[in-house]
């Protein structure tokens, strides 16, 4: 029986001062994460098998929500643990190499990009801020103006509801814009994600803002206080704060990171 072919899963890249990883941590595929150093950088990697993570299996497994959830959480757990000890540039999910040599080559080839990304996220963390439109209260029927007949009354009520709902939505959108801009002043960088679908997002109200901010760690308290203050001031939206996250949204996708 031949041994299963293996792949090297890359979690992220840190500087040369990461130190030893925590013992006994289970990463993607169940194995422990380990490090590869080159060019003054440390890649956090793990070993995974071809049967589950090879090109063909991966494509199939990505369509399995349970598998995707398990893999995303394992990827995140390793990155979150490493990020507590210093800046780590997270890799996009499912970045795999055939061997350690490929990882070493990448560290050497992209050393400048990784160093720039590390300097941007150093002593900073990502925070997520989502805003949901608050449903308007039922419009109060004006008895004096009620039309006669059930059909006319229904239409009048429906018109009032639609108008209230449209007012509430534009007010929520305006609040979301104000919140996004105001929090941006406390952040080194900001990024917008598409709003999540209502059924998945917990509160069953439409999401009007799904933003990520890169915030200096010594301003974290100020930032979270600002979110509370904005939540109290903008009643047309309900705000949800998540974080701190490893800097997934500010890892230098494509054209290089940097403040706006």
């Amino acid at each position, binding site marked *: 029986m031949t041994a299963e072919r293996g792949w090297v899963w890359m979690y992220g890249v840190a500087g040369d001062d990461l130190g030893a990883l925590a013992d006994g941590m289970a990463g993607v595929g169940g194995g422990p994460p380990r490090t590869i150093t080159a060019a003054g950088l440390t890649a956090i990697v793990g070993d995974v098998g071809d049967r589950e993570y090879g090109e063909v299996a991966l494509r199939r497994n990505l369509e399995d929500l349970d598998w995707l959830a398990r893999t995303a959480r394992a990827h995140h757990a390793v990155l979150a643990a490493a990020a507590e000890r210093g800046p780590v540039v997270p890799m996009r999910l499912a970045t795999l190499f055939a061997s350690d040599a490929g990882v070493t080559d990448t560290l050497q080839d992209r050393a400048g990009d990784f160093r720039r990304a590390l300097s941007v996220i150093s002593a900073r963390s990502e925070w997520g801020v989502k805003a949901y439109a608050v449903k308007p209260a039922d419009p109060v029927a004006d008895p004096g103006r009620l039309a006669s007949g059930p059909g006319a009354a229904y239409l009048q009520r429906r018109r009032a509801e639609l108008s209230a709902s449209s007012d509430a939505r534009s007010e929520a959108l305006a609040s979301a814009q104000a919140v996004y801009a105001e929090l941006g002043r406390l952040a080194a960088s900001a990024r917008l994600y598409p709003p999540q*679908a209502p059924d998945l997002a917990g509160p069953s109200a439409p999401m009007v803002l799904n933003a990520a901010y890169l915030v200096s760690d010594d301003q974290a308290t100020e930032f979270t206080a600002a979110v509370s203050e904005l939540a109290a001031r903008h009643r047309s939206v309900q705000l949800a704060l*998540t974080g701190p996250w490893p800097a997934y949204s500010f*890892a230098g*996708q*494509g054209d290089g990171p940097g403040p706006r």
Partner: protein
Amino acid sequence: MTGPAYEPALQGERIALVDLLDRVLAGGAVIAGDITLSIAEVDLVRVSLRALVTSISGLMEAMDDSREHS
């Protein structure tokens, strides 16, 4: 030096999968590995899971947004 506590290390509550998928599928550094999720594959994930995980729809728009806002 210790940094801040990252989710979910000190927070008992499990983080929402949708928030995590936003980040690990549309965020993170993109480098050319021997296997890397191509846009087409991320799109495939999006199509397959649309019913459950519509949060990652419009990945391309997210990337465009990131260029405009970063």
